[in-house]
Structures are given as C-alpha cells and as structure tokens.
C-alpha cells in the first residue's frame, strides 16, 4: 500500500506536520492489554460497587427489570453498529423503529408529535424552554421547585446566556406546586410554566388546572416526567403544550447516571419548532411505504446559527431498548407494572410518616424522627440495604426527610426491614 502511495514507511505520512508540535516519544499510557485482562479489570471495579444491594433510591433514576429480549435485539450488529439513518434506503430498520418510538411516545403522553429522542430528561428541559420562547416570543420562564433539582440546574446553566430569566415557584404542604405563588408570578412576560408529574417528591401535579392557568396568560405549559412507568397508569398530560421526560425506566440500566434517553413531544402546530431528529413516513420511487429523516431544515447542519438547537444526535440505541420494552409490556403490561409499583410504594408508606398530602406514585417523602436520614441510611447499609435519598442536600427545609422509592424489584422483606429501621423512634 505504501508503494502505491509512493512512500517508504508510515512515518512519512506525518512529514507535513511541523516538528515542533509532533509528540516527542510516546503517550504515557501502558501497553495494550489482552481481552482477558480488560474484562478482569472491570470485573474488579464492578466488585467495588454496590452490586446486589436492594435499593430504595429513585430521584430520577429507577430500578426496573430489564427483559432479556431487549439486549438480544440491541446486540444485533445491524442495530448496534449502524450509523444515523441519513441514507434512508439502507436504514429502514432504524427508521422504522424510530417511527414506532415516536408513535408510542405520543400514545403515552397524549401529544400529537414527538421527536426521535433527546440526550436525556434533564437536557430536554432547557430545549422545551427554548422552544416555548420561540413560539410565544416571550423571554421568561417559571419552573416549579418540585421539579428535579438537577434538571433545574441544567435548565439554568444551559440558558444562562439566552436572555431568559428563570424563576422558581414554591411547593405547598401537599407537595405540589403552590398555585397562589404561581398566580402571583404569572403574567404576559412568561413564555412557559414548567412542572413535573409525578414530581421529584413522587406527587402528582394537577396538569389541567395548571394548563388553564398558564393559557389564561398566554403562556405554554411544559410538563416533565422522570419516571416513565407512571404513564402506564396516570392520566397523560394531554393539556400540556410540550411534554419532556426521561425513559430510563424502560430497560435502560441506571449505569451510574447515563447514557439515558429523553423525549420531547408537542402539539401538531408546533412541529417545526421541535429540536432534534424526526422520522417521517413517505413512499419510495415504487410507491412502497418507507421512512426517512424529515424537516431537517430545523437542524444545525442546514440552519447553522439559526437552528432550533445544536443537537446532532438522538439516543437511537437506547430509544430502541425503550421501544422493545414498550412492545413486550404493551397496553396491559405497562398498566400492571405501574400498579405493582404503586402497591409496593404504598405498602411501605403506610408504615411511615408521609410528609406530603398529595397523591403519589412509586416515590414519597418520609419524615424521619429520632435520628437523621443519614443515620437511618447508615443503619440500613449495615443490613446490606441502600435506603432512600436524604433530601437535605437539595431542600434544606426537608433535611429531616428522605425520598423513598419502591418498584416491582423491591421485595417485601426488604421493605419491612427499611420500615423497621426508618420508622423506629430510637
């Protein structure tokens, strides 16, 4: 090959790079390892982590069973190692699954159109805010404090230079957004009101009432969710204008926080304001049904600085995992799964002091007495159980409380142990 190019050795390929910037010597990285050594290295690291501990953590990342068919499908090289489906003729596999994904997201959320996915739930929130700003041509956004704290941080950091003030709305004794505080701050400078349901505390917000309020002042309602399983049972937010959320619950391993898969969905009339990829139905030259990426003129590779967003990826493989999951559970299964989650969480909650009066799904806030939540968690850890999230780190006024989640993966005996330790007075 070198002969064909007319070079003597491979080093000659670098001859045009100025000497002063060429790396002197080699990278300070050990020599390449064998496959066995690599697998063993990660196995040892995995052992230094909490494998096998029952856990009551939720807070945006949920322990749900992953059906084995999911990995069987995504391990196929045609899905795992394929590229973005820009060449429709040889990507109908990916495009068809994206179309199915978009459809199911609409069915779940009650929206008209959904894109091919976002990085995750947290980054979808600023995208929704930016979309609302474009649509309403207003620049201010209100976000409930009961929205996931790290989602709110992401919102602020991501929009800090777009001339978009973000204000927070308090929550009340029921654990829901304080409607009086919202009414006081809502005026015709507000582009969007952003709420989460079930919210960070697991409590269901009243979407219809919030939609009416927001619309009365010409603002959009953005509804966020981080526990997708809830949508199997709770009324979908069809009064919202934009819905964003996280589908990690649908067969995506918690994986220490990522990669996950976000969604953004909206009403038909806002379709051209959606960021990210969209798969659309069409026909080919022979009249056969086919799918292709569409409305690409919204995107960065065409619009450049005027694009709806700079996003250049969708979480295709993870969206596929979620699609397979939704297919396996299906209409009846998702509802049954959600009902089991509801039952488990309420079983535990009945044994504890629940802080908020609002209805909750599979997470709730428990008030701990006689010890700090941190001490309760330490005691639980001694029994080999990971307790809930001590809330003081995000909500100083709730420093005596713990956010506890129970899913279909939590066993009764562990729930009894948790209740025993957390509920005890001493």
């Amino acid at each position, binding site marked *: 090959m070198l002969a064909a*190019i007319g070079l003597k050795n*491979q080093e000659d390929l670098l001859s045009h790079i100025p000497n002063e*910037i060429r*790396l002197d010597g*080699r990278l300070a990285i050990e*020599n*390449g*390892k064998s496959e066995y050594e*690599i697998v063993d290295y990660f196995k040892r*690291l995995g052992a230094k*982590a*909490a494998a*096998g501990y029952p856990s009551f953590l939720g807070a945006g990342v949920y*322990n749900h069973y992953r059906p084995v068919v999911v990995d069987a*499908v995504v391990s196929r090289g*045609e*899905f*795992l*190692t*394929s590229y973005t489906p820009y060449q429709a003729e040889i990507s109908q596999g990916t495009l*068809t699954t994206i*179309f199915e994904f978009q459809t199911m997201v609409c*069915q*779940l959320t009650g929206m008209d*159109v959904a894109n091919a996915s976002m*990085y995750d739930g947290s980054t979808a929130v600023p995208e929704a805010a930016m979309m609302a700003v474009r649509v309403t041509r207003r620049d201010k956004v209100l976000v409930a404090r009961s929205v996931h704290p790290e989602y709110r941080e992401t919102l602020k950091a991501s929009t800090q*230079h777009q001339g978009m003030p973000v204000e927070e709305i308090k929550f009340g004794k029921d654990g829901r957004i304080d409607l009086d505080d919202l009414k006081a701050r809502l005026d015709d400078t507000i582009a969007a009101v952003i709420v989460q349901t079930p919210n960070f505390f697991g409590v269901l917000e009243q979407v219809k009432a919030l939609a009416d309020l927001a619309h009365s002042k010409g603002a959009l309602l953005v509804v966020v969710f981080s526990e997708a399983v809830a949508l199997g*049972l*709770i*009324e979908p937010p069809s009064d919202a204008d934009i819905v964003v959320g996280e589908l990690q619950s649908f067969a995506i391993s918690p*994986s*220490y926080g990522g990669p996950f898969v976000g969604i953004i969905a909206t009403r038909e009339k806002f*379709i051209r304001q959606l960021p990210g990829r969209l*798969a659309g139905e*069409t*026909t080919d*030259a022979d009249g056969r049904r086919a799918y*292709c990426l569409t*409305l690409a003129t919204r*995107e960065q590779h*065409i*619009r450049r600085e005027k*694009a709806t967003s700079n996003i250049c*990826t*969708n979480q*295709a493989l*993870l969206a596929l995992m979620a699609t397979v999951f939704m297919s396996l559970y*299906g*209409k*009846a299964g998702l509802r*049954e799964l*959600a*009902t089991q989650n509801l*039952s*488990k969480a*309420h*079983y535990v909650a009945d044994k504890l002091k629940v802080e908020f009066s609002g*209805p909750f799904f599979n997470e709730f806030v428990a008030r701990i007495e006689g010890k700090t939540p941190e001490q309760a*968690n330490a005691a639980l850890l001694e029994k080999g159980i990971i307790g809930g999230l001590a809330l003081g780190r995000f909500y100083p006024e709730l420093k005596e409380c713990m956010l506890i989640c129970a899913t*279909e993966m939590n066993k009764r005996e562990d729930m009894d142990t948790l209740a025993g330790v957390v509920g005890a007075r001493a």
Partner: protein
Amino acid sequence: MIKKVSRHIVQEEPLLFELSSPGKAGYQLPELDVPEVSPESVLGKENVRDEIEGFPEVSEFETLRHFTRLSTWNYAIDLGLYPLGSCTMKYNPRVNETVARTEGLAWAHPYQPEELSQGCLEVIHALENALAEITGMDAVTLQPAAGAHGEFTGILMIRALLESRGNARKKILVPDSAHGTNPATASMVGYAVENIKSNDRGVVDLAVLERAVTEDVAGLMVTNPNTVGVFEENIQKICGIMHDKGALVYMDGANMNALVGVARPGDFGVDVMHLNLHKTFSTPHGGGGPGSGAVAVAKVLTPFLPSPRLKKEGELWKWNYDLPQSIGRVRAYYGNFGVLVRALAYIMAHGGNGLRQATLDALLNANYLRTLLEPYYELAYKSASMHECVFSDDRQAKRGVRTGDIAKRLIDYGFHPYTVSFPLIVRGALMIEPTETESKRELDLFADAMISIAKEVEETPELVLKAPHSTRTRRVDEVSAARKPIVRWTPRPSESQAAD
C-alpha cells in the same frame, strides 16, 4: 458488478401496531408480595388514565421476530465499510459491550453512597487521565452527553472566563468549512457568529484571521485536521493571533483519529476542545446515539469546569461540589457513564503504543484510497490528506451526475455512501474516511466500486441517476415527507380488526 452485501429485500414487516391483536402480551410479572392497591382509591379517579390507545399488543416472540426482521434492512459497520468523512466509523469492539454490562457498573445508581461507588469513580478518574494525556491538556470533564453538547460546554466555559475578566465579548469566529454544530452552539451561548473564509488550500487564511480578530471576538472554533482532512499547519500561529488579542481557541476534536499519539492539541496552543468518544474511541453509534462529548481544557479554564469534580479524600474518591466558578451542570448526574466504560476499554486494549499505530493506519488507509481515486475524481485540495480525503463531483457534474447520485449508486455495490455535499466550501463534496480497522481487501473493493461508477457516469449515466436499484427501498420521496410530515402511526378507519 461486484455485489457485497444484500439484505432481505423482499421481507415485508408491518409496524408493531399493525401486528397487534387484543389481549396479546410479551411479559410476565412476579406475583405481588404486598396487597394490591386500587389506583382509583389511592390516586383519585381523575388521575387514572384510560388504557393506552393503540399501544402494541404482541407476544414476546412476535416482538423479537419483528425487530430481527427490521434489523436486516439496515447497513452497519459489522457488515462493511462506511467511508463517512469525519464520522470515524471504526470497528466497535465487542469487549466494550461485555464490560459495560458488568453488574456493579451497569446497576450503579448515581446517588448511591460514594463508598459503594469506588469502582465507578475509578473508571471516571482513569478515563479523565488518559484523555488528558492524549490531548495534552490539563483537565477533562466527562459530563457532556455528545459532541455538540461538549462544544456547548466548551463555549460556556470560554464565556465564563471572559466574564470573569470583565468582558464576555460579542462574537465567535467560525471557518466556513466548519460543521453546522459549531455556529449553532455559538448562538446558544449568546454569541454572534462571523464566518472566516478558508484559503485556496482549504485551511484558515492567516491574513483573513488577523483582520477578523478584534477586541469583540471571544474565540475561534477550529477543527484540526479540518473538515477537508488537512492539517492546519499554521495552528500555532493561529493560536498566537487569538491569544494576542485576549481571545481563546476552541478545537472541534471530531477528527482526532488523525492525531492520537502523533500530536497533541494542548501542545499547539488550544485552550479547550471536545472529543467524540463514539468516533475516535470506538463506542458504537447505535443508529444515531448514544455518544459522549468529553471536553479537555487548558489550565486557564479549569476553574470553570462543570460541577461536580472528582477529589480524593484519603483512600476514597468523592464528588466535590464546592466549585465557585464552575459554569454549573450541563446535565443531570455525571456523564454517559456506560459510554465512558467502553471508551476506557478501547484505550486499555490499544495502549500507548497501539493508539499511535492506529492513527498511522488510519492515515495510510485514507491516503491509499486517495491515490487510487485521484485519476477518476477531482481532488478538492492538493494539500496532504490525513485520515480522510475530499473530492468534488466537478468531472461527473459535466455529465449531469452529482455527488448524491454517485453515493446512491455506491449502495448497489454493497457500501454505505461517503459524506455527501459537506463541507460546504467544496462544490459537490465527496468526503471519505475509511479508518484504521478496514483491511486492504475492503479498501480495494471500495475503490473498484468507485472506479466502476466513474466509468458508468461516462457510459450509462442513467444507471447512476436512478440508483439505488438493488435495495429493498428505492429512492425515497423526501419532498412529500417535508411538505406533509407524518411522524406517527395512526389507525386507519378500516383497520378496526387487527391481523391475527
């Protein structure tokens, strides 16, 4: 004609919703070990939904078969070469998949006690170190979810630094050869974008740059090697010009596959850059994601890195949130950890020696293809190519055939097209990047295909213009898809009975 791969072109497979039959299901949950609650009583009737209309009702086997059939309609790296420029479609090592599924790592919850997360924190630390070494930079964040997200993070940090000095400035300079994410990102950080014309050798014109850099310029976003695969040999001068005016240099690291082990951006003056772990570091594209956009910074920017950062306390790794100048967080949690594991496995497998060799092999493969194709396609720039080469369709355009047509005809030969019509500075661009994992055999087959097509353009252009001919789907009607977008399935009124 050379036929390489042919997928199931006659297989018909409806959508999940069209396969559904009432009552079918593909799951079984364990029996509840606690009393079942009534959703209506516990949540209130108004909060409980009706059934999810139209949601699939298929068996487990129908699900598996459905997706298996669909997969056979896809091209993939596992099947053959993707000559896509700047995408670095290399082999996705299967050991990556195995190690990412290690139980303790795959099931780790981001809020679990740090004492029980040491394995995860060590992965993050090890990868940050390795990437800092590879880029020659002082610190790395693994928080951004993708390349574009990394660009966003980098520009946010530049702005934060300039604000701390009293003036954020107003614009970012972007070469006209840049990827679209660059200007889109600059806009999102509140900067105006000014385009810088490339010279006739396809690189940044120093004189043009010098004139453009005023006190209003916050930075330059440069890709090196650039999007025509050419090394910006004046990169040190470029960085000098920017720094002299108090501006910073952002490097888009999409083409890092040409530099690993050979040259380090930190050594030539770059202030901040991103890496695409799903390109250079072999994590799988998965049909469009997930990726990961690691960002490496020079010392001057380290105070502004996203929060939290790792710190060691005695024997334990912990997260440090006490970072007063940090730009904040650009997403929840710590990064696409599952992708980070894969990237680290890749680096370990190659090692310092192997990483450099991989780069040299990537350069060899690209230049080999350039040599074979030069007689038939108009080379866009005579400058030395690194890991990719760029042609224009000038010769073929004389016969009415454009780069997009040639790309579609390449599909009939069993290959995925190269990058079409990008970068915009080349008329009718064909951008080709083979990567180091392609054998001579595969490269020869590809070159033979391209040469055969060049001949077809001269003799039977219709064949090329109407391509592809051998795929399950012919050319799709993108115009109708954009005029009347249909982005979800809806039941047709006559389909009230589902197939059985």
